[in-house]
């Protein structure tokens, strides 16, 4: 090997070490892409009334007091907005994982939504279950239960992924504490809120609670609602439903919502009413 070859060999070896270093580095890079709330926050430099601006920021999750560059928002603010928007789009297009549904023993039925595109354009289709679904529910579920629990992806699959593990067991304990019994719970794919009415017709529960993903927004893509109704049926009007919305880690805490749903269901059964007729 002549001098030049040795030189080249050395260079190649150096490169190789660099590349393998790079591979290890890659993990580090990925870690550093995981931003927390603190990483995203920006502040008004030297505000005249710091306590005032802090107080305002504390009462809203909206992007206020985030500072600016010229007349435009900071790059960080724009990127965060885009990220939140992307998360919202993902939430709509996502699917609830089978493993999660298995964990809670939920079988899956579908509405007549066909696919995501139709689902978004035709809300009415998400309110009716397929013939196959009706058959499956009739086969598998206890009829006339006191409480029927239904879970649905709605407009945010990630809401179910993020909150079901907390709200569901809290709800089951709340049923026990309130002396209530439930039927056979299941999952509805492509559901809209009013699918409660169709299920109500099939199973005739005393009360039905639907845990459904909410339309994602820029504050949270993981927000869930709990809709509750006393004897839901065809022709139920919206004012007959009781709802707790904004359930996520930064809003109504899922554990507390689950516990409180038990109290609401108890009152619905005692008062034989829901929605505006229910006194809470």
């Amino acid at each position: 090997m002549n001098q030049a070859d040795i030189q080249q060999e050395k260079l190649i070896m150096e490169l190789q070490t660099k590349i393998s270093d790079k591979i290890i580095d890659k993990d580090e890079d990925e870690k550093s892409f995981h931003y927390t709330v603190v990483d995203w926050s920006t502040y008004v430099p030297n505000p005249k009334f710091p306590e005032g601006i802090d107080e305002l920021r504390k009462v809203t999750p909206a992007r206020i007091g985030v500072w600016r560059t010229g007349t435009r928002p900071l790059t960080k603010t724009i990127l965060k907005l885009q990220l939140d928007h992307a998360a919202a789009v993902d939430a709509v297009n996502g699917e609830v994982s089978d493993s999660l549904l298995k964990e809670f023993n939920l079988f899956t039925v579908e509405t007549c939504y066909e696919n995501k595109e139709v689902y978004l354009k035709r809300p009415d289709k998400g309110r009716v279950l397929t013939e196959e679904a009706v058959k499956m529910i009739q086969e598998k579920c206890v009829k006339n239960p006191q409480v029927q629990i239904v879970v649905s992806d709605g407009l945010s699959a990630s809401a179910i992924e993020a909150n079901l593990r907390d709200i569901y067991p809290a709800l089951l304990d709340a049923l026990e504490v309130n002396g209530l019994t439930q039927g056979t719970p299941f999952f509805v794919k492509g559901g809209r809120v009013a699918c409660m009415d169709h299920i109500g017709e099939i199973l005739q529960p005393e009360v039905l609670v639907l845990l459904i993903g909410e339309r994602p927004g820029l504050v949270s893509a993981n927000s869930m609602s709990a809709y509750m109704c006393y004897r839901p049926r065809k022709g139920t009007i919206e004012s007959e439903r009781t709802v707790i919305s904004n359930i996520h880690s930064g809003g109504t805490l899922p554990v507390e919502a689950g516990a409180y749903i038990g109290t609401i269901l108890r009152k619905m059964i005692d008062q034989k009413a829901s929605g505006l007729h229910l006194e809470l």
Partner: protein
Amino acid sequence: MSRVEGQSIISVGIDIGTSTTKFIVSHLKYAKVSSHFSLPRYEIVERKIVYESPMYLTPLKEKRDEIDLKTLTGWLEEQYKKAGVNVSEVKSGAVIITGETATKKNAESILHYLAEKSGDFVVAIAGASLEALLAGKGSGAFLRSKEVKGTVANIDIGGGTANVVLFRRGKVLGTITYHVGGRLIELDQNGEITFISPSIEPWLHSKNYRLEVKKKICFKEMQQIVQEMCKDMLNSLTGQKLIRLDDSLIHSTSFQVIPPIDEVMISGGIGQLLEKEAPKTIYDTAVYGDIGPLLAHEVVKEIENCSLKLIKATQTSRATVIGAGMQSAEISGATIHVAPSRLPIRNLPIMMIELDNEQIKNRDYVYEQIKHAMIEWKQYFQGEQEIPFAIHIRGISYCSYAVLKEVAKILFSLYEKYFPRNPVLVVICENDIAKALGQLLVLQSNNKVDIISIDQVVVEQGDYIDIGETINQSMVPVVIKTLAFMKN
């Protein structure tokens, strides 16, 4: 739901002060402040006075070292009648013994006696720190601090003490109390001294003022003493004189250093005297048989000398009783768990357990923390009966149900182990998780122990809490009594 909105509870305030006793009846209106789509939340939205008693000279027994309970309760009964209120209708409120009266022999027993007799959930409040706080809330200083940028001090000067509280943006920074009051020295209109309070003697002595009962004093000398008293207090408040525990003018303090003050309000009997003309002779001074009128004008002069901004208080002599009657009660979160048969429950000391979002996931850590707190508690209250207390869990903003379940298991098993004779377990959470934690504890306890779990209440180590009966089947009124002292 709309049926409940705007419902009121009747609340009373009783302030037994060094020179006068006052009584008020108020209506506290609570309403739902949350939307139809979220968990319910209620707040007190309006506080209205419906009856104010006249000023009543606090009845003392002959030796002046005991309160005359019989005369006092007789007067109170008369006042309840005049106000048209039955004791059984009263659902909230506070009795406070203030200033020098608190040092009377039977003060404590009277306080608890009156609290029990005045309504379902009337709490006993004592201590200069709470007195300062309630006066500051009653005078309007607390509200003012929410509207302005700076720090607002309220100086409530009564017969025996000057109770100072500092507010900033609706938060309490702390309190300090001085031996400055209108009735510390009493005299007749000829200038003959008739009484010198033992609590001001050390200060008089340290300043080389030799006053004696039955001796005459001239206006100039009296004025100089009062001026010096005010100057000493203001120097301390503005930080020109450091706070020392052996300072003979300081009664008690929660501050080691007092933060800069921007605005000052003066309430109490002295606050009311500000509106009168300044006395120019000893005859003018002693119109009430004490140094009150002189003190009022000297303190204003000193405040102006320190270039502090003096703001007129909305309430003066009745500030404390209004604070006690209208501002002492708060409302808990509306998703809670309680055992109704156990309420009201009074005077619970707070055991503090701090856990953040990460620590709470570590089972062993949680176990050790709770165990440590309970063992310490047992040692502290050794010998005493196992008095009920409240466990405050603080620092968690979010936690999963699985984690909360572990916490409930640990909490209950340790409680059962260390406090087997306590029939009730009281837990206070900072965040809205009390119902979830409450139901987990109920499932753990298997009805052996009654569970009370409430939230959205801020308490500190050393505080005491009173919890009232449920309102509207969903929330409870609470009164938090802070007793943070360095010296008393």
